[in-house]
Each structure stands twice: as C-alpha cells, then as structure tokens.
C-alpha cells in the first residue's frame, strides 16, 4: 500500500492503495464513479475513458500510480460544464446515444477532440473516436453530432 493522491473532478483524493491498481477500479469501486464503464478491460473499447490533465486515458490500463498529482475528470465532473451541455444537446439531437454504455467515454473523447481541434473534418472525427467502440449506432449519429458542433464554431473549447 502506498499513499497516492490526485484530483478527481476538482477535489483532492488521498488513498492508501496498491499503486498498480487500475484507475478504473479505483474510480468505480473505491470512489463510486460508476459513469466510468468497463467494456473490455484491455484498452480496446474506450468505455472507461477519463480525462487526465485534459487528455483522454483508458482508465483500465492506467495504474493509479501514474495519475499521482494529476487532475482527473470523469463524466460525473464533466456533466456539470457548459461544454458537456453543448455536446450532450448535439448527441440528443442526432440520436447519438442508444444503449448508453459507450456514451460517457464517447462524450469525453468528443470533448478532447474539439478542445484541440474545434473544426475537425469527418475523417479527423472518425480517427479521434476510433478507440471508442459503439455497437448500436454505427457511429453515424455520433460523427454527425460532432461535425454539427464543429460547424457552430469555437464556442467555448
């Protein structure tokens, strides 16, 4: 057990924990951030995506030691922002969420993309989301929703 601290959705968290513990398990089991989903446990599906210092990580492959001192944002934190509202509204408009299991990870990745590249091309959107598997939508509505946001301009990224 080691003492490990990081910031979760703006608040400092201190844990005594095995440093190799998956960040995913820390978030879901210890900290009850159940919006972070486990779809595969091997970095293939992206359902466990979280923002670490502003970029998306697969929390299933992240030992908690690697986020010491870093700022982690999960969907629980992100959903209170106006950026979330913009993405969520576009997702709703296009029907980009069906079963919803991939959606929190998808939204965080959409944000990470738009923050760096507010006007992505369709190809750039498809590449940016290529680590987030969705089995319901065929990605059509998701890609369209993000392109629609990109049309609107830089807004607040």
């Amino acid at each position, binding site marked *: 057990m080691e003492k490990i601290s990081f910031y979760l959705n703006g608040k400092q968290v201190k844990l005594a924990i095995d440093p190799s513990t998956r960040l995913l398990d820390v978030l*879901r089991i210890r900290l009850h951030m*159940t*919006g*972070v*989903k*486990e*779809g*595969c*446990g*091997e970095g*293939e*599906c992206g*359902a466990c995506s979280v923002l670490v210092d502003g970029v998306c990580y697969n929390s299933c492959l992240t030992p908690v030691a690697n986020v010491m001192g870093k700022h982690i944002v*999960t*969907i*629980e934190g992100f*959903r209170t922002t106006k950026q*979330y509202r913009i993405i*969520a509204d576009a*997702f*709703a*408009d*296009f*029907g980009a*969420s*069906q*079963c*919803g*299991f*991939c*959606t*929190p990870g998808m*939204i965080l990745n959409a944000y990470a993309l738009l923050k760096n590249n507010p006007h992505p091309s*369709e190809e750039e*959107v*498809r*590449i940016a*989301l*290529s*680590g*987030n*598997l*969705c*089995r*319901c*939508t*065929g*990605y*059509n*509505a*998701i*890609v*369209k*929703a993000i392109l*629609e946001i990109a049309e609107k301009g830089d807004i607040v990224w």
Partner: protein
Amino acid sequence: MAQFKNSTVKIDNEEKMSGKALFTDDLPSEGFLWVRPLRSNIPCGRIRTINVPKLPKGYYWVDAKDIVKENVVNIIFSDWPVFADRRVNYYGETIGLLIGPDKAKLEELGRLLQVNYDEEIPHFKLNNSKIHKSFTKGNLDEVIKNHDFMLEETFETGYQEQVYLEPQSMIMWLDGDKITIKASMQCPFYIKNAVVRTLGCSPDKVRVIQPAVGGAFGGKEHYPSMMAAQLATAIMKIKKPLKMVFDRSEDLMYTTKRHPSRTTYTGYVKDGRLVGVKAHVGLNGGAYLGCSGVVLNRGLIAVVDSYDVPNLDVTGDVYVTNTMPTAAFRGFGSPQTIFAFEMFIEHIAKAIGVDPVEFKLKHLVKKGQTTAVNGKFHDDIILPQLVEKAMEMSDFKRKYKEYSKPGSNRGIGISTFLHGCGFTGSGESTIINAQLKLTKDENDIVHLYTSQVDFGQGNRTTLKKIVSDTLGIPEEQVTHEAPDTDHTLSTGPTAASRTIIIVGYLCEKAAKHLKEIWKPGVYQEWIEPYVGPDYIHWDEDTLQGDAYPGYAWGVNIVEISFDPITYQVKVEGAWSTYDVGHAIDERIVIGQADGGLAQAIGYGYLENMEMAEGRFRQKTLADYIIPTSADLPMMETELIDNLFAYGASGAKGCGELTFVGGAPALCHAIEMAINRKIYKIPANPEYLMELVENGKD
C-alpha cells in the same frame, strides 16, 4: 439541427449521456457475494470427480447436487442443464459456482479446484442432426425434368459475437422468501420462468426488475436465463445476495453466438427465369439445442429472400456438436440464408450471362403471391420504390457501370430483403399471448406497463409515444418505466422485431379503449390482450402457411474500394431504404438502421470468430474485430411509408430488418471489385487473397 420527422428526445437520453444511468454492475451491492463460475476445460467427457479445496469461512461451492427441482434452463427446447451433471458437452460448460466475498480469493480457489474427467472424443463435424425440417412449394420434380440451366453452390457463414458493450451481469437477492433479480437482459419473463422452473417454486416468489441495459442484440435473450437459474440454485442454498459480472473475455468465450451455417442451393432456370430451387440449410447448434430449431425455421422461411421462386424443395438441419451452444442474434437465422441466396441468385445471373441486378429485380415478390412456405403476401409490397430510391441516393447506375470495368478495384452492390416481424406463425396468439396493462391515476397520469426492455432501441420512448399520441395527451402525462415483473403483465420477450408491430399495436388499442372510457379524476385500468389478424394461419409442424403477421422490407447498397496489394476492403458508402410501415419516431428508426447495417457490414467482412478443438480462438476484443468509427462511411437512410393495418399508426418492425441485407450488399460490391465469386463470410483479406489468387471469376 438534425432533421427528423416526428421525433422526441428519448426518456433515458440524459441519464445515459451523463453517466447517471445505473447498469447492473453500477448498482449498490454492498455485502453481495461474488460468483465465479467454474467451467469445463475439455469439450466432451464424463466428470469423474470434483475436488473442491477446503473453503474458508464465508465461501461456498454450488453445483448440480444443489439443484432444487429441475436441472434445466427453460429455453424453447429445454435441454441445456443449469450445471453440468456427471458429464460435460462443451468447453466452457458451467460445472459449478465458487462464491465468496473476495474476488481475488475466488480466483485462487478456482485454481485449486480440480475436476477429473474421462475424456471422450469430441464431435465437431456437422453431421449429427437433431432437428430436421422440410417443406416444398409447387413441384420441383417437374422443373428438374424441364429446365435450360442448373447451378449448384454452397455458402458458409461464420460465428458472430454480439459485442453488446455491457457484458453479461446479474445481481440477485432475497426479499423475505422472494427472489429479486436485476440483470442485463432482454426478456424479464424468460428469466422469471427459468427460475420458477429450476426451483419449482410459485411464480410469485420471483421478481425480475430491469436496470439500464448496455446493448443486447439477441445475446441477452436466453443466456441470462442460464445465469438466473444458476444464481437461484445458489441463493436457495446459501441465502446471501449474489453478484455475477462477466469480464469481456469470459463473455466472448462462454456466451452464445450467431449460428454458423452451410447452405447448399441448386437452382433451375427456364426461359431466363429462376423457376425452381432445391435448398439445404445446416446450422451448427452447439452442444444444446435451446432456440436453434426456431432459428432454423426463420432461416428456412427466408430461404429465397425477397424473390419469387415458384418451385421449392427445402430441407434444414440443426447439427449438434461439442461446442458452445449458439442462440439468438439479430436476424435469428435469416441473415445466413439471405446472404447465401443473394449471392446465389447473382451467381446464376452471371452464369447465364445476364445482368445480376436486372435478373434480381425481375424476380422480386409481389403482393398476392405465395411465400416460400405457401402463405400469402397479403399487403402491399413497395420494393420497386425502395430500389429506385436507394439507387437514386447512391448514384447506383453510373457507379455500377463504371466499377464493372476490370481493374477498377471498386465495387457497388445491392441487396433487397424482407423480415417477418413478430414470432413465427400464429405464435403471438398461441404461445406468447401478450397482455398489456394501462392505468390512469386520480391525477389523470397514464401509466404504461410492458415487459419490453429498452437496451438502446428506444422502445420505452416509442411505446409511450404511441399511447400519448393515441390519447391525444402530452407525452409528459404518460409514464413508461423499465419492466418489473411484479408490476407488469407479460407483453412478451423483447425479440423477433415484435416490440413495435405487436406491443406497439397493443399500446394503440389499449389507449383507444382507455380514451373511450376516460373519466377525469378517477383511477382506471385497461387490460388489452393481443388478437392478431384472423387471416394468419400457420402449421408449425409442416412449416406451412402465413409465417408472420407482417413483413418489413429493405434495400441496402454498399460501395467499396479494394486494395490489390493487401486484399483489404474499405467501405466507401452505404445507402438504405426501408419500409417499416410507418416510423413512430424517425430518429429512433434511423438509429436502428445505422447500427444494424454497421453490424451487418462487420459480419460481412471483418468479424472473424473461429473454433479450434472446441474453443474460440478469438478471446479478446483485440482479436475479435468489430468496426470502429474509422471503418465505416457516413450511412444514408430513407424510409418510405407503407401502412400496416395491424400496426400502431401502420408501424411494423425494424430491429432485425436493418441487419439482414448488409453482408450480401457488401459482398456483391466486393465481387465486382475483384471479379471473383464469394462463397463465405466474413470475406476477410485472407479469404479474398485466396479468391484473387485462385478463385473463379
């Protein structure tokens, strides 16, 4: 803004996007014990001994000896045991459960637990038929005596895994002496019935409640019944709350897949028309039959797809092998035969030197004609309009001509198809007997109760909307909660594209009746039983008659490019038109269309799951490949109304329809690009290399 007709934001949209929706593994489960299945590691043999290590306090072992009443999972053909008893018939069959508070400890105990077997030689060949079906239409013998051309070909399709993003999961606890279950599921009453059957208990001792469900596609139609029967056996023994959540690799290796198939057609052509077909469809059912017979039925009924062939001789078999049982997956047998027949009919056209697409269009079925099983197409068929629209959307004719030139390395293909909505034949009236309850409280809020699970298709929203539209009240004045078997009557399983055509119709009828008796300010209740069209007659034993209450229709066009250096295919475009009767909510139907076609494209060229010595070789999502956003183009879909008399506002089904035509449209396109004939899917680069290097053009 997206442009959709008559669409509303889904009830569960915000909770799912914001991560607030609680899926089974997200539910509070303090004090629940983890359940770790112990599975067979041989494909076939007798269990000599099970050596359970000494278990620490608070840990338990549960196996066939603990069965309360009946060691069988209640699935259509109930031959699958809850726990392997004295013998195992496939690699991965559950022998027992290790249960306890600490997951790591359970793994350790699992490694210590030893099962000794007398191994037997496993059977993997498709020759041990346990279900045989046959029917004929017209008189094929006459055609065999008198035809101009004959062609025989065999087609194969592989396993397909559902890859719902949320793996199988279930929690169970005792509320007094009542078992309560929350799980990732499709059919709450299937689960309930499975528990009732294995325990032999009274139905009022089992309650099933649906939490958020992360996709299903057929994969959660029957398998959760197995999990529930296992956990119920355990809970009766140890009386503690239980939790079983599969990791992805467990889910890939040990849950049911789509049936691999081998279909052989002999086609007879006379005067430029396909006048007769002899067909045999073989499905690998795995070690236990379960629903395989019904899957075969659906495959056989779709044996000539959407084409009129007057003379047929059709047989089919479900073969039993020592492999993981196969079961429901979107399309339920019809994707296999529709793929095979679509390829076959184009191959015939090529062989007699006529244009494949013209040849197909000449054979499209029409209203009033007989179906493959001597039923009648009672309703209008608008396939020609669907074809025309899809061709216009995709600029088909120009591309078809251009890409047909040798060396273009590009191709475009079209499939036309149908899907029978609802349970086969008169099953809706004779087997399921759905009953729908609608109540209105003193505040005039209407409460809709169904057993339909919304695992992404949006049916919680759609069904509610049917009720509010029919009553002419705002949507907010109607509630439609996720099913709880204590509160709802059974409106049947969420399967077979029946939710809208059957349950939606019930919603509309119930709402009409409630409207008639509406008295403000008082509690009212209406129970609506399903009564199907009286012209539907079906003989289950002979597979003759009207196979479905209604049919939905579709056209897919897929465009691809081909890399002759790597034999890789890139999907460049996909266009679809559908007749789903009428879309209650267009955005939701388009969502089904996009997702169904994407899954079908994956089935056609990417998704490869192989069996070696009874085990799946693809054990992770790094090995079992499904499409990413980078693998798919923007898909375009148009709906054309064709109202169905027995559907809510004319609506039919759409869930499976959007899956069945994708693989053949894709493969037609690939055939054009490589100038070779395709006989199996997935048409992956390894297979395409063989074709390009050695195949027939």
